[in-house]
């Protein structure tokens, strides 16, 4: 997943998605609708935390730049549906062996051709342990991948310049859906001889390219201009995009108000209450592919077995999600009804057992009493969180509500920094429930379930394990028909709703706004504006 830059937002996981049509008037007597194809759009960004190498970028600041300057095998439209970009076709009979054919005559912005080696070499580099790539886990399902030692991806075979085959460790029908994520982007020949230098001035094959050698002014901005070599569907409708790096979202918002910024993709907390009134139909506020929950570790006393099931359900029913999202987040969160997100294909708000996510204090008290009959409660219920991420408000609201409903001690358990918090979670030394968030890497239900709740999965921080859930997950992953697969994943979620390894809270919304000079501002499924479609008067 991509993490938001910690310093910039002070919001740990305050992110953003949506689509909106524009209806702004022109005041300069210019043409309506068309826009000036040479106008440069200014948008907010943050200094990439790493050199711009696709497999080493796991945060939004660098991620949205990479998405602009690279074209993967597929790209996602505003609804998250994949379309072929560089790929001519991605074929499989068994969801395990894939043959990928590239469109002919694709070029990088420096004129060198995009071949199957551009992909295969980049993936091999990204997966190799000793290259220390932050996104290496994306290749884990390809045959030959190892977390523990340097190991070649033996599942990748170049057939000819325009095609290659991929063999996975097991059938995974949503593999093609992942290929639009930045870790799977191609790299030009020679880029990896000096990855650090390449990352300073990356050459890509996307709709945009860096504006000369000094395009990236560190800590200040990065400017991209249309790439004449790009032949796909995402051709730029403007004269370029200038990513302005802001230290705080408040400064970005002030620039939007002052007319120095065209598009803002995350409104600061301080403007949650006012931005929709101020920007009217130029404000965007709707659910994004970001799921927020708090995890109750399986090893926590009183929270395992039948007793644990009762207590988890009781806690889930003892706070009012709607009220908290309305009051604390001013409607910039949407109460959760499942473990995924409404913007993902296959989402359902009618899962069996989803009523456990409704506020129901009477039932909560009953369940808690039933659990007490098994083993009397002692101690205090706490939720751990990082205090540098703006989480205190909702943690206090939930724990107070739990306290009042169930009549037990409940409170927040703040950690000074995100680093301190993650250290305790990773080392399993945390002895309370703790906040968990997930921003999807690619638009599929599986991405919200497999990495977090499968037995010993990489982000299974609560050490949840259910053979029933694992079996459904595996069945869904191997099902080639996407609708059938989604139905199976929904069943898997119904298992989660019973076991509640994590208590779903809400989906973060994308909350953005744009200036009067720009039109055609749509937000992608991943909360990032679709830059190439924006036009400016």
């Amino acid at each position, binding site marked *: 997943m991509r993490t938001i830059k910690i310093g910039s937002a002070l919001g740990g996981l305050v992110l953003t998605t949506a689509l909106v049509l524009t209806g702004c008037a022109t005041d300069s007597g210019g043409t309506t609708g068309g826009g000036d194809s040479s106008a440069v759009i200014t948008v907010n960004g943050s200094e990439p935390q790493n050199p711009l190498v696709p497999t080493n970028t796991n945060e939004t600041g660098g991620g949205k730049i990479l998405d602009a300057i690279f074209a993967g095998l597929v790209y996602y439209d505003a609804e998250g549906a994949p379309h072929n970009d560089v790929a001519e076709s991605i074929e499989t009979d068994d969801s395990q062996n894939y043959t990928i054919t590239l469109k002919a005559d694709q070029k990088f912005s420096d004129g060198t051709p995009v071949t199957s080696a551009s992909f295969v070499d980049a993936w091999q580099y990204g997966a190799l342990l000793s290259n220390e*790539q932050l996104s290496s886990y994306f290749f884990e399902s390809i045959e030959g991948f190892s977390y523990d030692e340097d190991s070649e991806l033996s599942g990748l075979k170049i057939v000819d310049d325009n095609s290659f085959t991929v063999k996975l460790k097991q059938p995974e029908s949503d593999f093609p859906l992942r290929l639009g994520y930045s870790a799977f982007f191609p790299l030009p020949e020679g880029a990896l001889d000096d990855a650090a230098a390449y990352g300073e001035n990356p050459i890509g094959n996307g709709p945009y390219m860096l504006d000369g050698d000094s395009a990236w002014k560190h800590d200040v901005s990065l400017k991209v201009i249309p790439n004449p070599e790009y032949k796909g569907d995402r051709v730029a409708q403007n004269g370029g995009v200038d990513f302005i790096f802001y230290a705080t979202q*408040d400064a970005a918002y002030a620039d939007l108000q002052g007319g120095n910024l065209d598009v803002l993709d995350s409104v600061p907390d301080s403007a949650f209450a006012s931005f929709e009134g101020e920007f009217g139909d130029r404000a965007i506020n709707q659910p994004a592919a970001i799921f927020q929950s708090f995890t109750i570790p399986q090893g926590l006393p009183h929270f395992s077995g039948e007793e644990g099931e009762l207590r988890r359900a009781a806690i889930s029913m003892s706070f009012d999600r709607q009220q908290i999202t309305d009051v604390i987040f001013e409607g910039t969160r949407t109460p959760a009804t499942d473990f995924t997100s409404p913007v993902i294909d296959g989402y359902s708000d009618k899962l069996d057992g989803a009523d456990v996510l409704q506020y129901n204090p009477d039932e909560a008290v009953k369940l808690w009493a039933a659990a007490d009959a098994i083993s009397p409660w002692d101690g205090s219920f706490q939720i751990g969180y990082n205090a540098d991420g703006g989480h205190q408000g909702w943690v206090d609201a939930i724990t107070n509500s739990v306290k009042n409903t169930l009549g037990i001690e409940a409170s927040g358990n703040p950690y000074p920094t995100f680093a301190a918090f*993650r250290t305790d979670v990773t080392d399993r030394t945390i002895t309370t429930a703790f906040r968990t968030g997930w921003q999807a890497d690619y638009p599929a239900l599986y991405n919200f379930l497999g990495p977090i709740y499968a037995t010993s999965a990489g982000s299974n921080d609560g050490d949840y394990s259910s053979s029933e859930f694992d079996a459904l997950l595996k069945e869904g992953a191997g099902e080639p028909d996407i609708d059938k697969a989604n139905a199976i994943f929904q069943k898997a979620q119904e298992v989660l709703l019973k076991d509640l390894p994590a208590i779903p809270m809400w989906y973060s919304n994308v909350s953005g706004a744009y200036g009067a000079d720009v039109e055609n501002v749509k937000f992608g499924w991943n909360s990032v504006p679709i830059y190439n479609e924006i036009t400016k008067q």
Partner: protein
Amino acid sequence: MLWYILRRVLQVIPVFLGATLLIYFMVFALPGDPIAALGGDRGLNPAVADAIRARYHLDQPFFIQYLYYLQGIFTGDLGTTFSGQKVSDILGRTLPVTFRLAVMAIIIEAIVGILIGLVAGLRKNGVFDTVSLLLSLVLISMPIFVLAFLAQFVFGIKLGWARTTVSGDAPLNELILPAFVLAFFVVANVIRLTRTSVIENLDADFVRTATAKGLSRPRIIRVHVLRNSLIPVVTLIGTDFGLLIVGATVTEGIFNVPGVGNTLFKAIILSEAPTVVSFVTVFVIVYLLSNLLVDVLYAFLDPRIRYGK
């Protein structure tokens, strides 16, 4: 005098060593593992995390880490950030911006503060004096972020006189607004000190003598009152310079100035020891040098002051 300056400069060396050690230890003692945070909520592959830790010597005990850092410094290498940039590059890029901002703020502070203080002192207990007292109280009691947000909102968004934030190259005209904010944050002290000092000197014997000699009032005020009143004020402004370089963080954040404050803040959040230590050490040195400059200026303004061997 030269001997004195040399001795003061030599004093910087132990202070430098002490400061780096202390600050390095403080960053080291920050809770949590910075590498664990790099992966966000997903967490990193443990083998990759270990490799990165080893690259930054984070797997070594504290003193070894510190020695690695010192070794780097003596070979002209201030270390690299987690994103692979050289700390010296970042310093070279951000320090001039903050320096420029601080110098502008000092100039504004000096002109506004001394002028208002002088007039207020000359017309003691008059209307102007009372108003300046009120103004000083308001400025002194206002936190800098209130001042900054207010200025940004009024002059940037509502009136449109200034750019809401500072753009990439931080040109002088865009730095005017943040410089005023910084200056007004500290100007009240200058006003009050100048006023008191002027009032004191107006009653001094040498001023009475000058008046008796028949010198014109403007000349008396310029040469005898003002110059003597400036001695304590210069000390204050000199130490303010260090304060402004260090304290620009809030203002830089609000106006998005690409200076040291912003970078340091980010580095602290990420527990990036080389960046934090190098920056803070530079701050310490700037502070020491600006104090030295003040002491030298002092002798220049007041010939009675002589520094012994």
